[in-house]
C-alpha cells in the first residue's frame, strides 16, 4: 500500500470505455497540481488506457495494481 494522500476516490466499477478515462479527466480538471486521484476500474481496457491517457496528458501514474479483479490507479496531476 502506498501512503500517498488521496484527494479524491473515483470508482468506475462496472463502467466501460470511455467512461473511466473521461471521468478521470473531469476529476483531474478540478484538482490542483500535485493532488492525487485514486481510480478504481473494472474495464479490462483501463489497464492500458489509463497509462496511455497519462502519457498523453503528462500526468503521472504513481501506482497501478490489480486487486480482486479491479484495477486501482493512483494518478497525480502534474
Amino acid at each position, binding site marked *: 500500500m502506498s501512503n500517498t494522500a488521496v484527494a479524491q476516490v473515483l470508482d468506475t466499477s462496472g*463502467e*466501460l470505455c*470511455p467512461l473511466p478515462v*473521461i471521468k*478521470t479527466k*473531469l476529476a483531474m480538471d478540478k484538482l490542483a497540481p500535485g493532488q492525487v486521484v485514486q481510480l478504481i476500474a473494472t474495464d479490462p481496457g483501463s489497464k492500458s488506457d489509463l497509462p496511455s*491517457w497519462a502519457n498523453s496528458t503528462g500526468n503521472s501514474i504513481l501506482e497501478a495494481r490489480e486487486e480482486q479483479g479491479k484495477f486501482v490507479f493512483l494518478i497525480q496531476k502534474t
Partner: protein
Amino acid sequence: MTTTAPRPDLASLLDPELFRRLHEETHKATEIRRVALVASKGTLDMAYPPLILATTAAAMGMECGIFFTFYGLDIINKKKLAGLKVSPIANPAAPIPVPNILGMIPGATYLATFIMKRMMGAQRMPTVPQLLDMCQQLNVKLIGCTTTMGVMGVAKEDLRDGVDLGGAATFLDYAAKAQVTLFV
C-alpha cells in the same frame, strides 16, 4: 558494400539563429494534437465509435472535431436522434444473428434495436445523447454537413444547439492539421 558520402551537418549549413527558429517552429507545430473524424452512418451501432473516440481524444488533451455527413447527420439531428436503430439485415454480428430473410419482417429492426439498447444499458454504456453531451462538455467540435442538410431538407434548428456548419472544404482544412483522421 558501397560507401556513402558523409552527410553535411544541417546545422552548419544554416544560420544558427534560423536553425533555432525552425527547430522551435517544428516543435510548436507538433504540440497541438488533433483528431478529425467523419461520422457518415445513421445507425445506433455506428454512432458509438466516433463519439467514443472523440470524447476520449478530448480527455487525452487532443483537439477533436467530428464531421457529421449523410446519414451520420441524424446523430446531431434532434428529430432523428431518438430514432437511431440497429439493423439486423446484412449484419451477422447483430445482437441476435438473424437470417436476412427474417430481418425483413416488420419489427425485426425494432427488436434488434431494443435488444442492443438493453445490452448497452446492462453494461452501463452511456447513451448516444449522453456521449454527445460529453463531447460538448469536452469542447469537441461538432460540424454538420451543409450539403447533407440541403439534400435531406434539414434546417439548422433541427440540429443540436452548439453545432457548427460546414462543407467538405471546412472539414478538409480542419483535417489537414490533424494527426489522426478516421472515416466512420
